[in-house]
């Protein structure tokens, strides 16, 4: 029975997921029936403040964003490891060992931060218009 109760806890997620899907899909579907339609080609243009669109937006973008994503993955996984540590921290028998472990772990984590800091990941290269190597749309 206890197992069933545990299962029921997660069953509520399903119920709420259903409610969420309804609330997300409903507002998208309803305007299809009641909102006006204009058939003008111009209204389907990409909105760029009145200018005619030049090229696609699917171009290369700055590598700096990719670096952030990489560091995030490293840090995020490391921080995730801290959650179980925080849960068993006050077990009582190996207190100082626990603290030293946490401090060492965070210290090594900080080294990664220091490394990327020194490599200049957090201060992305500054470019002005004249230095830009490629134009959007090319």
């Amino acid at each position: 029975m206890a197992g069933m109760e545990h299962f029921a806890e997660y069953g509520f997620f399903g119920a709420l997921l259903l409610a969420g899907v309804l609330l997300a899909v409903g507002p998208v579907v309803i305007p299809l029936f009641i909102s006006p339609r204009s058939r003008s080609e111009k209204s389907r243009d990409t909105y760029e403040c009145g200018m005619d669109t030049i090229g696609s937006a699917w171009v290369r973008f700055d590598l700096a964003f990719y670096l952030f994503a990489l560091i995030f993955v490293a840090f995020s996984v490391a921080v995730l490891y801290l959650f179980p540590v925080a849960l068993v921290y006050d077990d009582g028998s190996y207190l100082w060992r626990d603290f030293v472990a946490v401090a060492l772990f965070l210290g090594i984590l900080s080294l990664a931060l220091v490394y990327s800091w020194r490599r200049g990941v957090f201060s992305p290269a500054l470019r002005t218009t004249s230095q830009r190597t490629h134009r959007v749309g090319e």
Partner: protein
Amino acid sequence: MQPLFDFLGQFTGGAGNAFVITAAILKIALFLGGVLTAVPFIIVFERKILSWIQDRPGPNRVGPFGLLQGFMDGLKLFLKEEIMPKGVDKTLFLLAPTLVVIPAFLALCIVPFGPIIQGEHLDALGSFLGLDPAMVGSGGEISQVALAVTNPNIGILYLLAITSVGVYGITLAGWSSNNKWSLLGGIRASAQMISYEITLSLAVIGVVLLAGSLNLYDIIEGQRGGFWHWNVVAQPVAILLFIVAMFAETNRLPFDLAEAESELTGGFHTEYSSMRFALFFMSEYVSMIVISAACATLFLGGFFGPIPLPWETLMEQFGLVAILAFYIVGPLVILPAKVSFFLFLFIFARGALPRLRYDQLMTLGWKYMLPIGIINLVVTACGVAIDMAITRDGEVAWVTKVSIGAVTLVLFLGWELLIFSRRRRSQLSREYRNLYRKESSSDPALAS
């Protein structure tokens, strides 16, 4: 009410199951309904407060004091044309708003809005509702009813996980639109949200360390007994980090680089119109409510009031009325008050602060907040270890909490003072100045 559940029980395999399912549907409906009704009002209040800050009347035409403006705006958006621009990735374009809204709602269900009803209180309330004590009661089949939609053990971890799913929606919305503004908004949003998520987690781990549990009810239980027991006393630096990170996570000013009207028109939602746009707008407010409620739960005692009332004696004197009041005050007065405080903070910051530059945002996130978060965690871990070594009772004493709070606060303020006293123009702004000087001297139009 027992006959009703007996009747429903024929379809669900027992009256107890019928009660559980009915309670769940009621909780979901009331909570979701309450939050969704609150959103239009929050929008009106936001516009009102901003207009007071900017010395203008603000919306005042629809309903008394313009209160119904939010509803009318929603209605208007239903009647607007849905535009699917040329050249978009259709599947992702349609999927993106859904991917933003659903996690916002899923994160809602974790927030405990009232205490767990059990023991004598459950007996009293059960007999008040005419329920069979064998079904609902301290000795019955259902011995506790939590005033939260769900109460899983992973609690806060689930909240962190589900809120980060929203990043996908915003990034995909920006990419699939095939618009330069949208693309910039989308990638900025993803970089910003993942950067601040780490600080958010570090701030939360401090609280988990003090509570020894991820379950939100356990975290609130550790803060019972007045405002001086709240986690904000033990983790004053963590709550500051959490507040800054929650502005960045919800893309609100001063961190709204994903939208940034003045530079990116609408950012990731430039190409969205009608209700598809409204979904982004709504989910932003829903996530504001969720993360405010999470902050109140983690740091400000959740549904517990600032001053503990003598509920025991009140219940002895007034019986059922006091019990009902005890379970109604938390969800209807105290938690909404705390959430409103944070919502006001969101709105006030929007009126008071300018938007950060992109590199400033990254500098703040990685070079300031992350190191502060790590140091805060080390100090907290040290404090808890010292406490455990002395008392060995598995609980962190109040004195330890205050000392941890004092040490972290002193370290934090000292570090800030050090920075401010040695403040020079940053390396970055010097580089910028040199760049523009070079450019203006080579460009005749700028040089004149």
